[in-house]
């Protein structure tokens, strides 16, 4: 967590450009509009004065409605942990980091092979995130490939709720969000209490270009009414589901997330909406949705600047890679994307240390490595404190030309506070490094991961609550599988 980065936030648009992006977005929503597949949302939009065509499901939204929705939005979103000490306040330039979600494979470090992920992999990733001090919120990094597909999101959440006290963000995957809300409610003592202690947030997506899918829209409304944090952002790929020009892709992304906000705010004023876009490019040789692309990073900067202009909490992405293995490319793409996202001042940065193979494969070791990267970034973004004491004129005067600082009180007092200490990065001399096994970063990350998993016990739920949660899962499973 970076409470208030001192360093100037990285901004890419001039005021004039920002204004043009904003007005182009409003023009798009008024002229082209969006398709809304959910009947209830069409009626809602019709009732507030949008131009709704019920047969084509195209909704053209006048700009005052879009701007009103921005005004109604929560300026600050509380995202609670099961334990209060992990509560997050999403506002201003407070930067928080969390895992990615939805990987279908795990890179098994010991065998070097990639295999389908299971519920126990979610448990391990969650435990690890619970232990690492630079991870602020948790997403079920893996999907439980060992349960029926229709109920997978329930098990993803079930594993998360049991193994971390940090705030949890889950993906709806089009499943009725009521089930997810009920499960989280069983942990905090009911739906009303969940409003005060929102330990669950939902990540859902419009379908680019410009379509609000039926289930996703239903869930957006459901979460808005439940007053829980909602990340509702598009994932277009420039050149395929968004224009080739980055400005065009940004305008479209902005229109997609802001029209989602219209549905959320007019369903429940003050809805806890989190703004952003996971926009990248479609790789022109392979067609993949690239997770390491600089295009995604620049969109993160753009969306953060727009989000701050709207005074909405901001979602962002970092710590992921297109690489298939834990190699130089993986750490390079993870580091750069994390640094860019953090320096944009975004409030929730997901996909930390989790994704290889364009989001399809998760790696526990990469989480551990990213914890170190974030720690380094946090150090940089905190900047340099300038006070009489930190300017150190007295001690410099005392030492004078030709002396040394190592034995000075001033040094002893400040060295810990002023300096960053690596936990994972290697600074041994070559001979010591060789004597300790010549271990590379991946090996060290694996050892640390194993050690944490063998030692760390997340605070468990009480027996009663655990029973309630298990019951809630069984009830939901039965209902869904009977259908």
């Amino acid at each position, binding site marked *: 967590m970076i409470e208030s980065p001192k360093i100037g936030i990285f901004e890419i648009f001039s005021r004039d450009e920002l204004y043009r992006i904003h007005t182009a977005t409003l023009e798009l929503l008024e002229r082209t509009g969006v398709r809304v*597949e959910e009947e209830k949302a069409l009626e809602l939009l019709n009732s507030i004065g949008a131009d709704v065509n019920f047969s084509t499901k195209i909704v053209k939204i006048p700009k005052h409605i879009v701007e009103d929705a921005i005004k109604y939005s929560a300026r600050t979103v509380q995202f609670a942990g099961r334990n209060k000490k992990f509560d997050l306040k999403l506002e201003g330039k407070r930067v928080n980091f969390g895992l990615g979600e*939805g990987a*279908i*494979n795990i890179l098994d470090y010991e065998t070097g092979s990639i295999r*389908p992920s299971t519920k126990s992999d979610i448990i391990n990733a969650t435990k690890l995130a619970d232990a690492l001090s630079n991870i602020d919120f948790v997403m079920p990094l893996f*999907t439980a*490939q060992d349960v*029926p*597909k*229709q109920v*997978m*999101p329930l098990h993803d959440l079930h594993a998360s709720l049991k193994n971390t006290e940090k705030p949890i963000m889950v993906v709806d*995957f*089009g*499943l009725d969000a009521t089930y997810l809300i009920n499960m989280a409610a069983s942990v905090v003592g009911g739906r009303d209490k969940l409003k005060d202690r929102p330990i669950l947030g939902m990540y859902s997506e419009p*379908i680019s270009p410009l*379509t609000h*899918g039926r*289930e996703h829209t239903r869930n957006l409304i459901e979460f808005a009414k439940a007053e829980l944090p909602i990340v509702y952002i598009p994932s277009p*790929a420039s*050149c*395929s*589901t968004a224009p*080739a020009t980055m400005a065009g892709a940004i305008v479209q992304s902005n229109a997609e997330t802001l029209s989602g906000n219209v549905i959320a705010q007019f369903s429940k004023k003050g809805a806890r909406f989190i703004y952003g876009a996971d926009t990248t490019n*479609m*790789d*022109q*040789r*392979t*067609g*993949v949705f690239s997770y390491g692309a600089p295009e995604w990073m620049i969109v993160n900067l753009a969306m953060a600047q727009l989000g701050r202009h709207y005074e909405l909490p901001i979602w962002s992405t970092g710590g992921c890679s297109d690489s298939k293995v834990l190699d130089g490319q993986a750490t390079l793409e993870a580091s750069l994307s994390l640094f860019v996202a953090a320096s944009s001042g975004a409030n929730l940065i997901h996909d930390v240390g989790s994704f290889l193979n364009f*989001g*399809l494969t998760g790696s526990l070791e990469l989480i551990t490595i990213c914890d170190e990267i974030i720690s380094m970034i946090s150090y940089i973004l905190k900047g340099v404190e300038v006070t009489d004491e930190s300017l150190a004129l007295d001690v410099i005067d005392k030492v004078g030309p030709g002396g040394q600082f190592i034995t000075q009180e001033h040094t002893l007092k400040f060295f810990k506070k002023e300096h960053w200490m690596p936990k994972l990065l290697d600074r041994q001399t070559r001979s010591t490094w060789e004597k300790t096994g010549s271990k590379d970063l991946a090996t060290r990350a694996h050892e640390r991961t194993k050690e944490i998993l063998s030692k760390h016990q997340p605070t468990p739920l009480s027996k009663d609550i655990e029973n309630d949660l298990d019951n809630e899962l069984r009830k939901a499973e039965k209902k869904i599988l009977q259908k």
Partner: protein
Amino acid sequence: MNVIIIRKTIPFYKIHILLIHMSETAHEIKEALLTLDREKLIQTIKTSLDKGENPQELLSAITAALREVGDKFESGEFFLVELVSAGEAAKTVISEYLKPLLKKIGSEGEHLGVIAIGTVAGDIHDIGKSIVASMLFTAGFEILDLGVDVSAEKFIETVTNGNVDVVAMSALLSTTLPMQRETIEALKKKDLRDKVKVIVGGSPVTEEWAKEIGADGFADNASEAVRLVKKILDISEQ
């Protein structure tokens, strides 16, 4: 030689004549497709038809040129948007100018096989499916694109009514993935499963899943999908 004929066999002497007569037109068609000049392609086809050239032969020339586009993509010289754009231009001239004429003379034109492709019920993600469809078309297959949110019934109807060789199903959401299984089960119930090959794709699809639901194959990208279809239909790479 780049002429592949599976369903409609053209007598050998005809191919011979085609190659001599068509060389100039074929060259122009190839140039238009390789430079992505849609207008030029349309113009060439129109002029050739006015001159009385055989639509069947023009179609062969387009197929050959598309194959070259595909090769250029495989070798990294062409990019995906160029490949798709060439495919779309070819599709337009075939459906607007050549198909109506071919129908009149009772010919379907030549192709490697018919693929019925769609995103399964409950899922409206389009782009992955469309790229695969475009690549298969470029490779020489006839495509029946059923769109998105395609029910098992719709797949069955298509298989029942047409000469479908392969059913290709896409799904992006883990919650809509089970529709791939349901569609296969529905095909079995109607005794259609043995009549077609079934392939599945989409970001959450794995090889294990494809095996589990009894699909004939899975591919994790569009180029692989083309190779897979050729493999399961026993079409040799040329």
